[in-house]
């Protein structure tokens, strides 16, 4: 059974059948998205680059970008101001990318600095946290508790702030316990 189904089973059980099954998917996705900074669901994606184009598009499932590697070298994360200080004409610079800037137009894009001098290959590799349809099995119980928090704090015929708060508190406590020090990047 998938962790999604297991999670739904726990929510249904602990809510005594009160949880709205139609809202489960939305609430589950919301919880998974908030897990981004905890860096549970890390993955990689190869991204092709285009000659002279600094902007690269990352996968739609991206929640939190950890690192960009270009042609086997780790790129540094720079802020827009830092790049401007380095090179005021940075937008026209072309060469081998050594850094990336996250302050691009959308969350799913980053700008390489300087823009690649050639089309792929070489490629860029993005290491990032993704949104998943099925969380890692160890997260099933904490995620179910955080879904219950959302379900019982919304306005409905079964709203229970105390129950919702306790579910949220317990879910976060279990996540913190599972969040070992080696996970801190």
């Amino acid at each position, binding site marked *: 059974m998938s962790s999604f189904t*297991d999670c739904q*089973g*726990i929510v249904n*059980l*602990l809510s*005594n059948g009160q949880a709205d099954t139609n809202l489960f998917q939305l609430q589950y996705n919301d919880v998974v998205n908030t897990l981004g900074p905890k*860096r*549970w*669901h*890390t*993955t*990689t994606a190869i991204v092709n680059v285009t000659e002279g184009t600094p902007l690269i598009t990352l996968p739609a499932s991206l929640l939190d970008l*950890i690192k960009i*590697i270009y*042609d*086997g*070298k*780790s*790129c*540094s994360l720079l802020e827009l101001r830092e790049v401007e200080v380095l090179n005021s004409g940075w937008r026209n610079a072309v060469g081998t990318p050594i850094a990336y800037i996250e302050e691009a137009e959308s969350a799913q894009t980053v700008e390489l600095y300087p823009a690649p001098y050639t089309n792929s290959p070489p490629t860029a*590799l993005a*290491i990032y*946290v993704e949104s998943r349809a099925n969380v*890692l*099995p*160890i997260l*099933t*119980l*904490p995620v179910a508790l955080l879904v219950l928090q959302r379900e019982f704090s919304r306005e409905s015929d079964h709203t*229970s702030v*105390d*129950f919702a708060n*306790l*579910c949220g*508190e*317990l879910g976060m*406590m*279990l996540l913190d*316990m*599972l969040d*070992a*020090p*080696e*996970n*801190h*990047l």
Partner: protein
Amino acid sequence: MAQNVGNLTSQVSERARDPNQTGTTQANVILLFSFCQQVVNGVLADVTVQDVLPLTARQLIYPIFANMPDSVRVLAVRDASERDLQPFGEFAGLGNVKNSWPSSYSDTPRSYAPCGRDLLIIYPGPTGTPILTVISAALTTALTLPAQTTQVTNDSDDAVMDLCEVLLLLKARDIPDCQKIIERFKNRMAALETEPK
């Protein structure tokens, strides 16, 4: 020593004032107990699993769940001669070694670094295809029957029972008692985490 799941879940139901398991059936208590055991072992790592990880030449980054579905947290990595690879405490530490770490290769990998919870970086990348052994905290087996036994130690069984009791009290909306048992669970886990293994 493993303990009988039927006995433990009966005790938990009794503690949650549902001795006849009418509020929550035995099958459902066992289901919750099973998830509680997984979480407790995910924290304490009483039960470990050894997985074989065959490396691919010139590849440094390996997905954990796809290669080792029962691994919850990597504890150690050993090479074919049983030597431990050096853990890099943090993934960011690799960047301090040199920024070309993603293209560093050697006959024998020397170090490893988890990146988040689902990527394992082996450094330097292998030039050949060596096989490593990865030791991890295990995802304990799902419990479904009262005749099964727990996998964690007896001391950890108490923590599993506490957490399961919390869930049963939550289900019964017994908020004040639930808060008391959460405190007991927290204190027990803190004591178990500092206990030498």
